[in-house]
């Protein structure tokens, strides 16, 4: 019977044996590879932030009119713009800003999500209805419109974009965490703990927190890519960081005036760098999820 099945099944399925069928040593290596990719991603992002904030920031805003409109070369890896500013330095500085805004916004958003999810899951029916309605309301307005409105309400600029990104990214994570906490509350081990006479604080700290925390952490890290992309988008539309700051959105929006003149490098490289950054965060998030989430260790 098994041989008959494997003959009819698509060959690709048979070609990929389950991880548990492999020798234990290879499984450990898999884990280490995940850990290594996580560490690499974090270190690379840290380097970008440090370089962008402290090493290259002065270069990024320095103008040199003898060097303007240069195509990429060894001297200027990403070329220069119409004011002779080095695009590589501007890109790195922009990325570092994006990462900082993304970190701040994702942290705030995830805390909001955790608080709201706890209220919804533990606060009774009414609280649940209110939170669910809030989630629906926030998801009912297109995200970009909401970002524009909130950034406008906060007077645009750094705080405008950071607050806008921070207070609009919680709905999805809130849904996930709410379901998770509810499942945890109904679980046998929490029921047993209650029957054994533990107080609600003890249950929350010793039994529920370890259950929910991995989901929270993964959700937090997977918020970064969204936060960074929305920061760039809002700045690109003109509601975010001011034009004198080297941000990716500013760089790309300024480049639009020079594209028809054939200066493709103004848009191409900063965008690629942004994609690479977002993918690094994705990599870090999915590695971490596989490392700490028991449900996906077999992937």
């Amino acid at each position, binding site marked *: 019977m098994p041989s008959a*099945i494997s003959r*009819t*099944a*698509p060959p*690709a*399925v048979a*070609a*990929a044996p389950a991880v548990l069928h492999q020798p234990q040593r290879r499984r450990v290596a898999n884990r280490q590879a995940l850990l290594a990719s996580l560490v690499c991603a974090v270190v690379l992002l840290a380097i970008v932030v440090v370089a962008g904030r402290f090493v290259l920031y002065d270069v990024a805003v320095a103008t040199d009119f003898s060097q303007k409109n240069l195509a990429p070369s060894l001297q200027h890896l990403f070329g220069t713009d119409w004011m002779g500013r080095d695009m590589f330095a501007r890109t790195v500085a922009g990325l570092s800003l994006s990462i900082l805004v993304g970190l701040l916004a994702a942290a705030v958003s995830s805390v909001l999500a955790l608080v709201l999810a706890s209220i919804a899951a533990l606060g009774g029916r009414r609280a649940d209805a209110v939170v669910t309605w809030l989630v*629906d*309301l926030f*998801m*009912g*307005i*297109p*995200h*970009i*419109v909401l970002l*524009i*409105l*909130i950034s*406008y*309400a*906060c*007077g*645009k600029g750094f705080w405008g974009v950071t607050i806008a990104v921070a207070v609009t990214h919680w709905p999805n994570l809130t849904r996930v965490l709410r379901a998770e906490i509810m499942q945890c509350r109904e679980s046998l081990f929490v029921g047993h703990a209650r029957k054994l006479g533990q107080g609600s604080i003890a249950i929350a700290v010793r039994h529920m927190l370890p259950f929910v925390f991995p989901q929270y952490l993964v959700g937090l890290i997977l918020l970064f*890519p969204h936060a960074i*992309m929305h920061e*760039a*988008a809002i700045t*690109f*539309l*003109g*509601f975010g960081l001011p034009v004198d700051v080297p941000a990716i959105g500013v760089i*790309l929006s300024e*480049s*639009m005036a020079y*594209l*028809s003149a*054939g200066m*493709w490098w103004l*848009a*191409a490289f900063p*965008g690629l760098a*942004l*994609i690479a950054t*977002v*993918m690094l965060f*994705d990599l870090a998030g999915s590695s971490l999820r596989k490392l700490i989430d028991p449900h996906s260790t077999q992937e």
Partner: protein
Amino acid sequence: MASFVVRHIIRLMLLLFAVSIVVFFLVSVSPIDPVQANVGQSAYLNMSEEKRAALAQYWGANTPIWERYINWAHDFIHGDMGTSLRYNAPVSQVIAQRATNTLLLMAVAWVVSGLLGFCLGILAALKRGTWVDKVVKTYCFVLAATPAFWIGLVFLIVFAVWLGWFPIGFSVPIGKAAADVTVFDALHHLALPALTLSVVGVANIAMHTREKAIDVLESDYIRFARARGYSPWQALRTHGLRNLALPAITLQFASISEIFGGSVLVEQVFSYPGLGQAAVTAGLGSDVALLVGIAIFSAALVFAGNLIANILYGVVDPRIRAGVGSYA
């Protein structure tokens, strides 16, 4: 049925009411002065005091926000969405003009990205583990990390500047009388923005379809069909396609919010005169009435998409249909 309709109409009303309150609240707390935002710094400094007062009156800067809201809500209930101060025209007229462009753009992107994503997902599932699958997966993964407006910029560079196949922006040729614009002109201008939006929208639907198709391919009924001598594609076509298509369509309806967001960015890149561009102009120019109008329009659009998705869920899976026969 009647209660279903009434319930959803009430929900829509509540949502639109909440959206309008939120928008007015956000605008009222904004520190941005509409007069300064619209006349520019130097003109504002050279302006006489009376002129400033007149402009503040025009932009309603001195009227308390709750009074403006009540005025607005009163008119809105009577079908008047107010006057756009930026475009100097009724909001309903501005929205109607631009909604045609945006809805056309969104509709093309919606259909193309849905079809393309569905086909790619099926293809990847059938060729699971091969290079085809890897290409599709990488494509989706990279695309999920790519901002829509950057793709637009790249297309602009490649197709409009280097190859010169498509115009660089707007929805009609520059300097041509409105009466002379042909359908071909309009489509020619629509192509690049629609392509951008379609390419971006593929990732989600393709990955979803791939996962589902793999589940279906591993199911017992497909195994039975294979045992009867069907090829994987034949088995999937006869027994799997319908199960896969409806969830995909449902997902596509639920993603209208994202497509609208993408269209805002893409319109900005291609200077395409749609709702997104109007929203940006309204926001930068403190045009409250237009901002509220667009927010309400887009919320209603998203609501309609989600509603259709919900109804389709019921069609796909009878167990979700509440109050039907033995499942109730």
